[in-house]
């Protein structure tokens, strides 16, 4: 099941003109600067905002077109925003049951996780008797996500659900989202302006800018595309899927295998061999050499080929590398580009100073 949408919406001088789709499973991040229309787009999909020129459908089920407009309570969506919006007069259990009871009446909601599964998945058992004001920000968001899941939605719309949380609470809740992602085959449209969050949980990216969808595609490709602003930002990064291949107990190092080769990093806690992980390499942590240095402290030196060189600013260039099909970004100085005589096609060695495990 795919969610398709198309809107041409003007309000208060803002023009949103966006079309796209959210695939069956996995997390699609709607990413862009504040004020670019991400939340409005989500509200339009939910039916909370009305747009006269728009279309939304879930495969064959039309939610909105020229003749039809399903009000939000008739759309099979789960919708969670920043402050969770738990009902203050109900305890956690009754908040969770609010949508569950109502969705139970419709037959199309028959499939989907049951009450106990959702509670276990989000770790809510201990919280059931509490009132919303007795919960921390992170707990509140977990309840809000659970409440939305219990309506057995066919798509989950999350509008910066973690933006109001501090760093620690955010890190505590991300594993729940990842679990949700793994265990429920539910498409998720996730609004965010935080590259960290996106790198950790997104599979696909819809890039939004000034009311328009600028580009859409798989996460890695989008992050490393030289024409898109992500690869050009200070925080430019490559995100790769890898698996744990072995542990070196003497040096406390773990080897990871990914499509473009192998990497070592300090052994993270509690990860078994064979487990899939996501890693991040910042473009500024990658330097280039013409020969593999044997007298360097850098552990990860991988052969690569330059695919493209773009000026970033007067001092720096963006170098796109190809590691046997896997892309990798490097930000280096123009001086180094000239000194090494780099050009598209040049064979180089990518020296990776640091690899972060996104768990």
């Amino acid at each position, binding site marked *: 099941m795919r969610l398709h949408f198309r809107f041409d919406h003007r309000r208060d001088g803002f023009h949103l003109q966006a079309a796209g789709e959210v695939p069956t499973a996995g997390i699609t991040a709607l990413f862009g600067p504040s004020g670019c229309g991400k939340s409005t787009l989500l509200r339009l999909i939910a039916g909370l905002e009305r747009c006269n020129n728009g279309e939304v459908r879930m495969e064959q089920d039309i939610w909105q077109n020229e003749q039809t407009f399903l009000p*939000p*309570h008739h759309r099979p969506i789960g919708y969670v925003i920043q402050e969770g*919006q738990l*009902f203050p*007069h109900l305890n956690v259990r009754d908040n969770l049951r*609010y949508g569950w009871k109502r*969705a139970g009446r*419709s037959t199309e909601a028959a499939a989907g996780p049951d009450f106990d599964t959702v509670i276990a998945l989000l770790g809510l058992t201990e919280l059931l008797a509490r009132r919303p004001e007795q919960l921390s920000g992170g707990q509140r968001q977990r309840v809000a996500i659970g409440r*939305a899941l219990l*309506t057995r939605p066919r798509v989950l719309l999350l509008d910066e659900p973690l933006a109001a949380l501090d760093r620690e609470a955010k890190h505590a809740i991300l594993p729940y989202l990842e679990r949700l992602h793994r265990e429920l085959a539910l498409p998720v449209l996730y609004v965010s302006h935080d590259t960290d969050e996106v790198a950790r949980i997104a599979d696909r990216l819809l890039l939004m800018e000034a009311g328009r969808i600028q580009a859409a595609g798989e996460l890695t490709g989008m992050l490393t595309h030289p024409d898109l602003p992500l690869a050009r930002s200070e925080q430019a990064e490559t995100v790769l899927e890898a698996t744990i291949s072995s542990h070196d107990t003497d040096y406390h190092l773990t080897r990871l295998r990914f499509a473009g080769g192998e990497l070592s990093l300090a052994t993270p806690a509690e990860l078994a061999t064979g487990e899939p992980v996501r890693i991040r390499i910042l473009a500024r942590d990658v330097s280039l050499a013409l020969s593999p240095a044997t007298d360097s402290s850098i552990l990860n030196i991988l052969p690569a080929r330059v695919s493209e060189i773009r000026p970033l600013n007067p001092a720096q260039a963006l170098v796109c590398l190809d590691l046997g099909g896997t892309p990798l970004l490097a930000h280096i100085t123009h001086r180094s580009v000239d000194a090494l005589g780099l050009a598209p096609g040049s064979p180089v060695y990518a020296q990776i100073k640091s690899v972060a495990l996104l768990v």
Partner: protein
Amino acid sequence: MFSPADIASLWVTLKLASVTTLILLLLGTPLAWWLARTRRRGKVVIEALVALPLVLPPTVLGFYLLVALGPHGPVGGLLAWLGGPSLVFSFTGLVIGSVIYSLPFVVQPLQASFSAIPAGLLDAAATLRAAPLDRFFSLVLPLARPGVLTAVVLGFAHTVGEFGVVLMIGGNIPGQTQVLSISIYDHVEALEYGQAHWLAGSLLAFSFLMLLLVYRFNRRFGLGRP
């Protein structure tokens, strides 16, 4: 202590206040909800009209009601033409006058507490499959409980205390349209200060007690903090 006439006027007063409050809740709740949610420009006109009884001398309101409800007025005339009962100097007339006179005391607290409900909660309820009426009963009313209580008590108490409007359109018919405030006035006119004291004192104690209960209740549930 209380004469049979006093008891009768007490009874008329309680009946009037109860009926008026009930009608005001039924009419005032949708009106207050509309005022709290609409973004139409015409809203301010309705708000000003609702607030009018707060500033008008009751006799002005009573005068226009007398004219309108009288046998030659638009409402009274129409009713007489249809063969209906006369509204002036009747209990029904009193109810109509009281409903208009006490309208702001019910609508304003309701509107304030409806407005205080964050729009995000209503959006959340909508995406949790609650239809509009369902949202109103499962979310809005429980959250607006302090406002509803305030509206009930103020509407009731304000009707109990009215004088001018009643005098203009209800007259002073014992057992039918003679209310407490007018009985007190009559006692004072007749220099029966003892009787007047009993009634006035009871009204004072009653009003204070009602307000005390409202403030106590709203403190417990946090007025304006849904």
